[in-house]
């Protein structure tokens, strides 16, 4: 029952992502075929569906099977995944089997075809093996003695379907006693200059019933700082969302240990505060927002390294200690409705991230205080003989078609609040246009006020009025100012800000209502920009079905050419009654992101008796 519930929930919310496992541009890793006795077989690299492909030729003679295989270091698949490839076949009718870790399943019967056809393999049929550690893939052809044929295969892809609802993706719970040496390395760094590897710090999992990871420091080792690097390979966790959290349990047997965590390719180190997280002999659950590490770039970070960094070890005779880690997870939170990015929630106060500036002798102080949901940012200021003061921060934001919003409140006198953005960091050195908006902030202790800045609200303004430059690139905003200017005789005041967010200016397009089997169909935004910048990279097709249906979704260009079949052309996918959505990342059937332009989608729902379709356009503007 649980299994069916899981499958049901899997299909309630689909998140479709694809990646090419092997494009067969060369035959690297593909071994010469293993064949039955007296048979002949060969592989070669020839022109394929997209550039080169694998050509697998067999002549069974007196034999009946042949196979070609590739060994992978580690491939992390799951039951919800689908493998897809394109093939052509010429020869006698045979059967094609696909083999994962020496487990074989029939894929299809091969008959001669002169055109490239897609083929998908639902990995549910491999549920009897551990799909998370795939080391071997094989294509196997079975036929009759005397049969001959040539199979060409190209663009072996992984289509990943997994729920985007709140879920934790378990990275490791350390329950098994695997050899962690491939995943973990420990080094002592001398002033961060000359790391030297040593096995003294390699952890071992315990063999108790409740296992966890032990990072062990041995007394007598010289060094100022110690770090362990935990590496994760595979694909499941390499595409972070800014709504993800790294979550784990940690404790230490020493009260003096201070720990920082950083991610590979990120200059940030997240320090676990010993005063707020007392992990001395006490399991603490730590949740670190991914956005803390990847402020500017949410693209794939590839192989992940969690670096547990022990800081401030100066004494050579530091006592031995251990750190224990368990249940390392990637927590994927629900995306708040419409929110595309939490720019700053001020939970992690870092006075250096926001610069402050007081005109003339104006005084300005910043601090972290209790806010709406956690902490907020407080600015205490005192107008002495200047006109304004400001705080500013560098960001990398796409404001195109977005609403910038935050919440604020103030204490003290009435002042003016001005919000400005610029696409230049070094705006002081050039004549740069920025856009701004004025608000009067009421100088009384009041409730939080939400302030929304719609795209049309921004006004162009230049520091050099003679050279107003209206070509501000809203897609690449790099700086935000919040300026408070004196109004009247105001002096000492406070200003609070919290939950600075970017939300999508939604243009929900209801295309169909009250259909016979499609209750409703809409897309959230006709425009989308699949440039992998974390914003509006996918178009979402939302639909509500009155009954169980088979669904097809095709994308065409305006010439009428089919550029993408979300599922195989002519092979609808089963969906249960209810609400669903399908996201498309703007890639064509060759896994290439399509060019800017207008595209037509065709959505077909088929039940046993009725066929209903929706056709409309979407626009790629990246």
């Amino acid at each position: 029952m649980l299994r069916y519930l899981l499958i049901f929930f899997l299909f309630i919310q689909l998140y479709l992502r694809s990646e090419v496992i092997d494009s067969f541009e060369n035959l690297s890793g593909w071994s010469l075929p293993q064949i039955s006795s007296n048979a002949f077989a060969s592989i070669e690299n020839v022109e394929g569906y997209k550039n080169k492909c694998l050509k697998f030729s067999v002549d069974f003679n007196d034999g009946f099977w042949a196979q070609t295989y590739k060994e992978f270091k580690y491939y992390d698949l799951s039951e919800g995944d689908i493998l897809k490839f394109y093939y052509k076949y010429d020869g006698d009718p045979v059967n094609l089997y696909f083999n994962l870790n020496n487990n074989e399943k029939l894929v299809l019967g091969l008959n001669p075809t002169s055109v490239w056809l897609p083929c998908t393999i639902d990995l549910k049929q491999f549920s009897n093996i551990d799909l998370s550690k795939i080391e071997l893939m094989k294509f196997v052809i079975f036929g009759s003695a005397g049969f001959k044929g040539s199979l060409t295969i190209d663009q072996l892809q992984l289509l990943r379907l997994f729920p985007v609802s709140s879920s934790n993706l378990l990275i490791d719970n350390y329950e098994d006693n695997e050899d962690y040496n491939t995943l973990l390395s420990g080094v002592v760094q001398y002033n961060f200059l000359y790391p030297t590897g040593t096995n003294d710090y390699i952890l071992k999992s315990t063999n108790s019933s409740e296992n966890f990871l032990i990072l062990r420091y041995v007394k007598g080792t010289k060094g100022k700082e110690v770090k362990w690097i935990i590496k994760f390979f595979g694909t499941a966790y390499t595409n972070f969302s800014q709504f993800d959290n790294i979550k784990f349990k940690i404790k230490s047997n020493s009260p003096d240990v201070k720990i920082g965590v950083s991610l590979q390719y990120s200059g940030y180190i997240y320090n676990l505060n010993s005063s707020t997280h007392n992990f001395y002999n006490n399991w603490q659950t730590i949740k670190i927002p991914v956005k803390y590490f990847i402020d500017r770039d949410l693209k794939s970070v590839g192989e992940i390294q969690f670096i547990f960094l022990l800081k401030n070890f100066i004494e050579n005779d530091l006592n031995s200690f251990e750190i224990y880690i368990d249940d390392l997870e990637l927590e994927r939170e629900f995306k708040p409705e419409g929110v595309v990015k939490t720019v700053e929630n001020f939970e992690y106060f870092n006075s250096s991230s926001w610069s402050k500036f007081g005109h003339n002798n104006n005084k300005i102080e910043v601090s972290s205080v209790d806010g709406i949901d956690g902490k907020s940012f407080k600015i205490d200021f005192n107008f002495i003989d200047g006109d304004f003061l400001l705080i500013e921060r560098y960001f990398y934001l796409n404001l195109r078609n977005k609403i910038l919003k935050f919440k604020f409140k103030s204490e003290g006198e009435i002042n003016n609040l001005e919000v400005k953005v610029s696409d230049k960091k070094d705006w002081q050195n050039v004549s740069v246009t920025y856009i701004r908006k004025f608000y009067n902030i009421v100088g009384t202790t009041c409730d939080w006020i939400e302030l929304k800045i719609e795209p049309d609200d921004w006004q162009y303004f230049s520091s050099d009025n003679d050279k107003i430059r209206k070509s501000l690139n809203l897609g690449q905003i790099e700086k935000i100012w919040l300026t408070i200017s004196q109004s009247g005789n105001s002096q000492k005041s406070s200003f609070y800000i919290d939950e600075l967010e970017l939300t999508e200016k939604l243009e929900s397009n209801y295309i169909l209502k009250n259909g016979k089997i499609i209750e409703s169909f809409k897309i959230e935004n006709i425009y989308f920009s699949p440039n992998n910048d974390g914003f509006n990279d996918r178009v979402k097709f939302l639909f509500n079905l009155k009954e169980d249906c088979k669904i097809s979704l095709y994308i065409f260009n305006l010439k009428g050419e089919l550029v993408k079949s979300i599922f195989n052309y002519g092979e609808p996918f089963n969906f249960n009654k209810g609400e669903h959505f399908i996201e498309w990342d703007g890639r064509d059937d060759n896994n290439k992101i399509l060019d800017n332009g207008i595209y037509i989608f065709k959505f077909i729902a088929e039940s046993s008796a009725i066929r209903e379709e929706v056709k409309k356009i979407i626009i790629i503007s990246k």
Partner: protein
Amino acid sequence: MKKLVFIILLCTKSIFAKAFEESLTPYSLSKGSTGTSFAIDSSAILYNPALLVEIRETLFEIDYSNLYNLGAVNYYFSSFIKPFIWRGGLGFCIIYKSIDSSLLLNEFSEYAIYSSYGLNINKFLNCGLSVKYYYANYNFNKSSAISSDFGILLKLNFLNFGIFIKDIISNDLKWYSDNKEEIEPLIRTGLTLNLFENFKISYDIENPLNKNFKNFLGFEFFLFNKTILLNGGLMELYYNKIALNFGFILRTNFFDFKIGFSQHYDLGLNTILGVGIKF
């Protein structure tokens, strides 16, 4: 010549969608998009400017289509062609596309401006050149580019043979978002058999050097002393699917009334209407 061969060899990529790609007229659509080797109207600008030489009257044309009858994309085409000096033909056209306001788009516009000239080299050979300006604005993400098309027409008894290279030379589309897109050349070859005085069959191949080449077949039949031109054709789509095309032109001394249909396997009926004025 070596350069031309090189460019032709470059035209082996499978072209997928790109802004400005679709260009149609009632006449070209109704005869299966076979316009590389024969044309009687401003379709010549779009399909092979070398054909402009063959049109010996001054024509003005306006066409409109709500593409695939989706209620989403409005397509406008207006053109002017005129026989010109040095045994040539001159053509201008503007293609403009807009999105239906019901779709609540912030900002959208897309147009292409063509300036074409066809030149008669000798009794058997014409050549033609188009220079084009593209502009698009997709939700404040703007771009423009200059591009050019080149075409050749070989005329023999009962046979026309045309080669058309679209976007043979162009600069890249540089969008405000810093995204850059290459406009790739597209090659078409076409053959028209003049079987009888009133009946022609045309056959075009798109991307002939590519394994994913596409076939187009069309015919045209003059009726009632050339008062009516009846067209039909087939267009290859994908997975052996085809589009069936049909249309006709009612020809008078001063006006031509045109209509073209294409029944796409998946997208349904595409209709385009047009009016031509003759001077």
